[in-house]
């Protein structure tokens, strides 16, 4: 089974790093990831996006057909990608930057104030990691929490950034669990 993930938001919201993080963690777990970024002029002044595919075994086609999961950090991203999402796609959306409800009713949208939550972690830039926490809480079968923490520990050698990211990740997880609980 191949899981197709779309990530989109403003440049600067950490979309690309989050995509790479997902792929890296998948590789750490012995899975086969493919990461594909938007690039070049497309990114200017607008919405950046990337795709990640994760599978247990080699993935032939790097193309994304219809995402199973979408992390949507702003309104333009929702506008752009809503149509192509798979039925029952899990959409993790940033309610802080999304101003209208999706038109589609056949998707599962989880909205969270990612910006606010990130600020609560002490860094506006960790909204992406909050989203990651939410994702893993909702789809624990995709990637293991432990590997993600291991990855974060490697990626941010030490100090504030690491703490903030771990906080953000946990905050995301908690957000879901609180809702569940």
């Amino acid at each position: 089974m191949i899981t197709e993930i779309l990530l989109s938001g403003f440049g600067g919201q950490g979309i690309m790093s989050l995509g790479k993080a997902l792929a890296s963690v998948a590789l750490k777990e012995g899975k086969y990831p493919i990461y594909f970024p938007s690039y070049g002029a497309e990114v200017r002044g607008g919405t950046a996006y990337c795709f990640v595919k994760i599978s247990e075994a080699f993935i032939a086609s790097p193309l994304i057909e219809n995402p199973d999961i979408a992390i949507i950090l702003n309104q333009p991203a929702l506008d752009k990608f809503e149509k192509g999402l798979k039925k029952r796609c899990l959409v993790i959306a940033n309610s802080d930057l999304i101003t209208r409800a999706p038109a589609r009713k056949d998707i599962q949208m989880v909205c969270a104030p990612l910006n606010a939550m990130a600020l609560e972690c002490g860094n506006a830039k960790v909204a992406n990691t909050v989203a990651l926490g939410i994702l893993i809480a909702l789809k624990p079968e995709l990637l293991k929490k432990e590997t993600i923490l291991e990855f974060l520990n490697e990626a941010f050698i030490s100090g504030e950034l690491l703490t903030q990211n771990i906080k953000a990740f946990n905050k995301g997880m908690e957000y879901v669990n609180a809702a569940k609980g």
Partner: protein
Amino acid sequence: MKKTNNKVLISGNEAMAEAAIAAHCHFYAGYPITPQNELIAYMAKRMYQENKIFIQAESELAAINMVFGASAAGYRAMTSSSSPGISLKQEGISYLAGAELPAVIINVMRGGPGLGNIASGQSDYFQTTRGGGHGDYFTPAFAPASVEEAGQLVCLSFDVADYYRTPVVVLADAIIGQMMEPATPVIKSGFKKTMPSKPWALAGAKNRAANIVKSFFLQEGRLEMHNELLKKKWDMLRKNEQRYHTYKVSDATCLVVAYGSQARIAREAVDILREKRIRAGLFRPISLWPYPEKGLRQVAKKIKRVLVVEQSLGQMIEDVRLSLPEKDIHFLGKAGGGIPRPQEIVQALEKLV
């Protein structure tokens, strides 16, 4: 580069850059262009660390001619660009071929013609395999279908370039250049022959006669002779360096032919067809020039239908036609960023069967 079990997550552009360094590329000159900017940025950083030379040239023309100089000086040299920039290098590539200088040229193809766009494309096949520059020459050209292979083929290209004294093109597409996937860093090219020394290199005429590097032969008959010699080289390359890969061809009755990222997409289509009990197989040329016609003829023996799939309006199809003159060849292609998707390939083949 994030590493696990010796596989790292890396993009094709970076893998090609890193492979060049592993292959002892001593000189790199390039000019920015999407979608190969990561390659030049990587070289900017790494070449310095390796005590080698990186130049952001003022243009693609300058870059290819700097490479000409570095190669004439006897060093492994590389440049990279994308489609429009490669068009600008055509004169330089013809000079490299004429002067018999080894060099590696990476083209991370995008959509054309003209400024086109920056999406993936495979529309520079003709340019690459039919000498986009003037004169009778060919450049060996290798097309990777994965990030790991992108690195491998860069390594191989340096060896082929040195062995045959010829410029070599690595023809990647934007998908291969941009995507990241697990890859084992390249150590060796797998090229078996011993590298020749470079007595012709320019290093000062010390204890030897003066060396001249040139492609100009004014005296009557001399250029004709030179071309005859070059022809022997092309023939040797045609004989020795055809490379390809196959997938599920042993019992196949219909065959998809595709290269680069499109071959991976086609592979998914083959899997889908197999699930539908259609005996499809995939022939993936790795060397686009010399074209693996021997392999293709072999594989195609029991094949009834052939479908060529390209991110172009139909270029490689000519080589398939030339290789299999007696067969009916079908085509599926899109240009300008269009990418034939697995389901489209499946449908196209189903229609044929």
